[in-house]
């Protein structure tokens, strides 16, 4: 098979990947960016170049700001391979990917994994019903197709993206039946300790407060401190039921958009057997890297939200720092310190708000580890929380063994949507820390591959 080569191969064309490409090109490195989507921008800047002006106006200035990075990338001289599905990465920098119905190989002297984040699963009763979607998913529909809910929608959960989507829907004239917020008074108390630090990111803080103020000013029904969330319906969602201040509330809706933050998409870093640690503040796994993002002594780096949730701006800076380190290793940037210094400074500024956000929008225990045995945890193979707890009773030690006990995590999503829940459910049941229970062993191909893709 023909193997293409490049100095730096980047997987993912979001802020981290695009900024890394631009930075590496200024050092004269050859760069190839592989991305699953048909246009660059990642999920945050999805479709930013071709979105009509009215749509960009609805989405707001933070979205439109992505156009600058996208256009810098377009003129950087980096090679962009769109609709490229990476299914294997090796620690020596070899990548297997599918494009135009054929599997191909690319060898990078270095590879940057910039696969971004995914919405944290929201395992509650009824979350598999049609009509229950991630708020991020609905935002993708808005960015990529201009699509808006037809009927009054219910937004539920917590986190900046949920309020941002609410704000965008208000601007677009979409009707919101209710915003059901799981954030409780105790969360504000916990977060207040981090407020001083967050003030260093005062611009971000002000933006967030502005969104929430706009939602409060609107006449949509806001419920806060909600618990016991449950999607009701038979063939599709019909209502969201929950409790607030000791009373039961039920809001009929045909579209329930849930969200409780985003988590790193670690499928690639797990697949190369990189060391991962459990982040107790963000309640998720993250790969262990050096300060530049390098994974151990490999040819692989990780930047952006796939390394740890830092947001778009910090992701871009991490991408640039990884590119500088790679340039340094390849001998084109003998002294990295001068060029890296301003980036390291801005990284501090952009991430100063994180401890505050992590504390304030910490997803509720009951929405991460289902209380009800009926809740489906593994959506693909339809394994419930009760079954997982039963496996533990029978001697199941960790996520890998749930596969043998009941095919949990063995469906097409390869554990992406149940992994965190399974780790935490087992840890709770065994009274251990998630770090002691571990994660699935993720093996390539990390995306489905057709046999026909191997035929020349």
């Amino acid at each position, binding site marked *: 098979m023909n193997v293409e080569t490049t100095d730096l191969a980047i997987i993912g064309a979001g802020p981290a990947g695009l900024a890394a490409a631009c930075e590496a090109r200024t050092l004269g490195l050859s760069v190839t960016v592989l991305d699953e989507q048909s246009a660059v921008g990642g999920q945050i800047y999805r479709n930013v170049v071709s979105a009509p002006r009215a749509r960009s106006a609805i989405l707001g200035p933070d979205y439109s700001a992505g156009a600058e990075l996208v256009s810098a990338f377009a003129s950087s001289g980096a090679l962009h391979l769109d609709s490229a599905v990476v299914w294997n990465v090796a620690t020596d920098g070899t990548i297997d990917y599918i494009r135009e119905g054929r599997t191909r190989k690319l060898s990078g002297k270095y590879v940057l994994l910039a696969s971004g984040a995914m919405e944290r699963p929201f395992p509650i009763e009824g979350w598999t019903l049609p009509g229950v979607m991630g708020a991020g998913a609905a935002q993708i529909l808005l960015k990529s197709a201009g699509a808006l809910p037809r009927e009054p929608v219910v937004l539920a959960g917590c986190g900046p993206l949920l309020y941002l989507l609410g704000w965008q829907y208000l601007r677009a004239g979409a009707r919101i039946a209710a915003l059901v917020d799981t954030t409780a008074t105790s969360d504000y108390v916990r977060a207040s300790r981090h407020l001083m630090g967050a003030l260093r990111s005062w611009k971000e803080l002000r933006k967030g407060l502005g969104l929430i103020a706009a939602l409060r000013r609107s006449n949509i029904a806001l419920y806060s401190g909600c618990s016991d969330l449950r999607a009701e319906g038979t063939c599709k969602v019909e209502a969201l039921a929950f409790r607030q201040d000791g009373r039961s509330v039920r809001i009929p809706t045909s579209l329930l958009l849930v969200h409780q933050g985003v988590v790193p998409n670690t499928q690639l870093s797990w697949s190369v057997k990189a060391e991962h640690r459990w982040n107790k503040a963000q309640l998720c796994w993250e790969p262990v890297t050096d300060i530049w993002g390098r994974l151990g002594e490999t040819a692989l780096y990780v930047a952006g939200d796939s390394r740890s949730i830092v947001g778009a701006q910090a992701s871009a800076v991490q991408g640039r720092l990884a590119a500088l380190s790679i340039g340094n290793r390849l001998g084109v940037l003998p002294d990295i310190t001068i060029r890296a210094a301003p980036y390291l400074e801005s990284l501090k500024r952009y991430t100063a708000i994180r401890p505050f956000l992590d504390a304030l929008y910490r997803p509720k225990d009951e929405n991460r580890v289902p209380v009800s045995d009926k809740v489906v945890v593994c*959506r693909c193979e339809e394994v419930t929380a009760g079954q997982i707890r039963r496996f533990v009773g029978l001697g199941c030690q960790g996520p890998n063994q749930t596969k043998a006990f009941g095919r949990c995590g063995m469906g097409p999503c390869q554990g992406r949507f149940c992994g965190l829940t399974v780790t935490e459910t087992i840890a709770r049941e065994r009274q251990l820390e998630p770090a002691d229970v571990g994660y699935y062993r993720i093996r390539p191909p990390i995306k489905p591959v057709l046999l026909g893709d191997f035929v020349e």
Partner: protein
Amino acid sequence: MLTEPLFSIPASEGRETVTIIFDDQAVTAPAGISVAAALLVAGASDFRTSIVGHEPRAPYCMMGVCFECLVEIDGVPARQSCLVPVKDGMIVRRQQGAVSLPDSEIGDGR
């Protein structure tokens, strides 16, 4: 079966359209959007039935990680419809439970 769609695209977004066939019904969609987006806007209440309980399922993440939006596209089963852009004349089918290869494609077909 198509019902009341959950999402709609405002007329002000007007642009070039393509037509795809979903379970023998013609569906018109703006060019360039994903098959999953096109089906949601057309009113596909579910995209497939689950492999164990045969429960109806529809897209959850719209970004290629949840695999809930799997459908058959132009004869190839289990395609992630949120990652495939619509093309004129595309034939899309709902997927019922687990996918099995037709006997004719296994071994020598006898």
